[in-house]
C-alpha cells in the first residue's frame, strides 16, 4: 500500500493523462441526479455527488449487452451459427465509486467467478477495471453501510481509496492495479494518511441508520420462508424493477434473441426477480406467479440464501438506494428486522 498526496489543482491534468491508457467512467450529473457514465474527452467525474441514482454496476455489467450475432439466412454459409461480439476490454477505470458500491462488486464476483463457472463478460470487464473509490464524508440519511460489514471508508473491492482533505486528496493505492493507475496519472507525491482515522470516525458517526441481521444465520431457511410475515411485507409492492435495477448487488440477467429480418443479436439484459416473467417456464408454469413469492425471493436471497451459501454476510451493502427509490416505501431494514425477530412457533 502506498499513500499519495494529490493536489486538487493537479486532479484534472492527472485524469487527462489517464485517458491515453484508460477508458474512464465516473459520476456525471444529469438533471437532478448523478449516474455513472463513460466520461467524454475532457469531462471530469463530478466528485461532489452524494450517491448515484443507479449503482455503478453498469461499468462492468451494462443494462443491455450484445453477446452474439447470427444469421437466419439459409443462403448464408454460416447461418444459425453464433458469432462472438467483439468487446473492448482494454483497461478502464471507475473514478469516484463509493466504498459500498465497490464492496458490492466483490459480492457480485462471488456469483460470476466460481469454481464451476466464469462469466466471461462480467469477468473480462471486471479484470480490465481499476476501481478508484471516494470515501464518504457526508453519508445520506438512508445509508446504513456500517451495519453491513462495509462503511464510508471501507477499502474492500477498491484499488485506490481517495479521501478528501482540504485542497488535496489523500490517495491510498491499495493494489498493484491502483499503483499503476496513480503512476499513469502522474500522481507521485508521497502523502500521509494520519488524517484518515479521524475523518473515518467522524463519517461513521454520522450514520444513524442500521440493519438488524445478527440472528439471521441461525434461522432455519424454511421457517423464514413459511413465516407469516410475507403477506404484510409484500402487500404494497407493485413488482417493478426499481429496487433490483438500482441495487449494486443484484446481478440477475435475462437472455433474449432480437431478430431483424434474417439477422439477429443475442442480448443479455438486466432482469429482476420482482417480475413474473423472471421465473416463467417454457411450459407456461410459473413457480413464482404470486407477488408474495417474488418479494420473499428478493429478501430471502439478499438476507438468507446468500448469507448461508457464502458465509460472507448479507447481499446488501447498505447503499440505501432501494429504500430511497421504492415507489411504495418497502424498506429492506424493516424487512430484515422482521426476519431477524421472527421465531417459528414450535
Amino acid at each position: 500500500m502506498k499513500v499519495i498526496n494529490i493536489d486538487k489543482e493537479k486532479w484534472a491534468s492527472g485524469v487527462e493523462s489517464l485517458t491515453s491508457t484508460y477508458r474512464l467512467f465516473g459520476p456525471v450529473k444529469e438533471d437532478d441526479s448523478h449516474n455513472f457514465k463513460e466520461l467524454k474527452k475532457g469531462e471530469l467525474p463530478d466528485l461532489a455527488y452524494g450517491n448515484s441514482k443507479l449503482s455503478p454496476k453498469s461499468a462492468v455489467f451494462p443494462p443491455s449487452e450484445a453477446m452474439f450475432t447470427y444469421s437466419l439466412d439459409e443462403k448464408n454459409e454460416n447461418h444459425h451459427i453464433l458469432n462472438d461480439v467483439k468487446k473492448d476490454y482494454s483497461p478502464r477505470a471507475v473514478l469516484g465509486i463509493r466504498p459500498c458500491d465497490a464492496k458490492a462488486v466483490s459480492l457480485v464476483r462471488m456469483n460470476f467467478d466460481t469454481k464451476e463457472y466464469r462469466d466471461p463478460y462480467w469477468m473480462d470487464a471486471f479484470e480490465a477495471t481499476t476501481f478508484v473509490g471516494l470515501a464518504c464524508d457526508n453519508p445520506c440519511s438512508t445509508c446504513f453501510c456500517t451495519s453491513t460489514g462495509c462503511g464510508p471508508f471501507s477499502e474492500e473491492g477498491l484499488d485506490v481509496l481517495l479521501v478528501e482533505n482540504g485542497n488535496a486528496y489523500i490517495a491510498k493505492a491499495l493494489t498493484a492495479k491502483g499503483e499503476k493507475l496513480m503512476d499513469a496519472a502522474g500522481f507521485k507525491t508521497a502523502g500521509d494518511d494520519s488524517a484518515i482515522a479521524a475523518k473515518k470516525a467522524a463519517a461513521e458517526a454520522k450514520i444513524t441508520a442500521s440493519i438488524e441481521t445478527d440472528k439471521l444465520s441461525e434461522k432455519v431457511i424454511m421457517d423464514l420462508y413459511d413465516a407469516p410475515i410475507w403477506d404484510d411485507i409484500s402487500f404494497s409492492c407493485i413488482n417493478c424493477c426499481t429496487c433490483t435495477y438500482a441495487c449494486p448487488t443484484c446481478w440477475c440477467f435475462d437472455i433474449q434473441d432480437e431478430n431483424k429480418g434474417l439477422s439477429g443479436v443475442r442480448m443479455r439484459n438486466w432482469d429482476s426477480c420482482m417480475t413474473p416473467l423472471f421465473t416463467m417456464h417454457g411450459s407456461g408454469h410459473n413457480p413464482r406467479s404470486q407477488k408474495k413469492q417474488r418479494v420473499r425471493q428478493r429478501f430471502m436471497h439478499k438476507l438468507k440464501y446468500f448469507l448461508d451459501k457464502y458465509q460472507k454476510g448479507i447481499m446488501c451493502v447498505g447503499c440505501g438506494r432501494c429504500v430511497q427509490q421504492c415507489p411504495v416505501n418497502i424498506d429492506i431494514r424493516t424487512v430484515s428486522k422482521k426476519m431477524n425477530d421472527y421465531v417459528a412457533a414450535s
Partner: protein
Amino acid sequence: MDAYITKIKEISERLLKDGTVEAVIGFRQGTVPTMSEPCMIKRSDDVKDLVWDSNCRINLCNYLTNRKEKLAIVAKGCDSRNIVTHIIENKIKRDQLFIIGVPCKGMNDKNTGELQDNCGTCTHRNPVIYDELVGDLVEEQTDVDKYADVKKVEALSSDEKWNFFNDLYSSCTRCHACRNACPLCYCPTCFVDESKPQWVGKADDAVDIRTYHFLRAYHCAGRCTDCGSCEAACPQNIKVRQMTKKLEKDCSELYGWEAGLTLDERPPLDTFKVDDREDFIK
C-alpha cells in the same frame, strides 16, 4: 389532515369490528420523510397504524384488481375515479366495496415537497363515489389551465416533438414502475412482457423504450384520470404524464369525456355509436 385520520381510523375500526369488510386498504407510516406506505389492515387492533398525510400519492385503486373479498378503501378524488373505471371494467364490484372518501387538497411531490404537478390542475378533488366521507367537501379548482404543458408540446414541429420525447425518456430504465403503479395497467401479461409473439425488444434500445411509453399511454386513453401515480412512482423522475395527458386532452376535446365520473356510461374507446363524429380521422 388530523381530523381526516381520526375519522379514517374510526370508520375502519367500525367496519372491521362489525364485519362489514374483511380488510381496509389505506396508508401507514413510511420509513423516510417523504413516503407513506400502502397497506392492508385486517384486524381492528391495527387501525392505529393508518396514517393520512400529503405523501399518500400512490393510487390505492391499484390494489383492488380482481380481489374477491369485501374491502374498505381510502379514496381521494382521483382514486375514486379509478375505482369507477375499475367497476366499469369489471375489475371489482361496487357491492364489494366500502369507499371511505377523502376530500383532497393535493399530494406533495416526493422530491420537491411542493404540490404535485397533477394536483395543481386537478378539478375533481372530491371523491365522485363514496360510502362515507371523512370531512367536508373541499372547493373544486375551476380556473386552472390543465393542459398548458401539453399545448406547448403540440405547438412543436414533428422533429421537435420527436426530440422532446426522446429526451423525455432518455433516462428510462424500463423498470415499469409507471405501469405497475397505474390502476389501469392490470393486463395479466403486458404487451412488453409478452414473448410469443414478442411485440417489442427487451433491451435498452430507444425505439423499444418509446414504443413501451407510447403504447401504454394509448392503452390508457379515455381511462386515465391524471392521478399522477405513474409519475410519482418513477425513480428517474420522468414526466410520463406528458404523454397520457395529451390523450386525456384529446378525449376531452373529441368526445367531451372525462374518465371515471360516472358508472352509467362506458368510456368512448370501448363503445360504438353510429353517429360518432369522424371528422378528426384524416
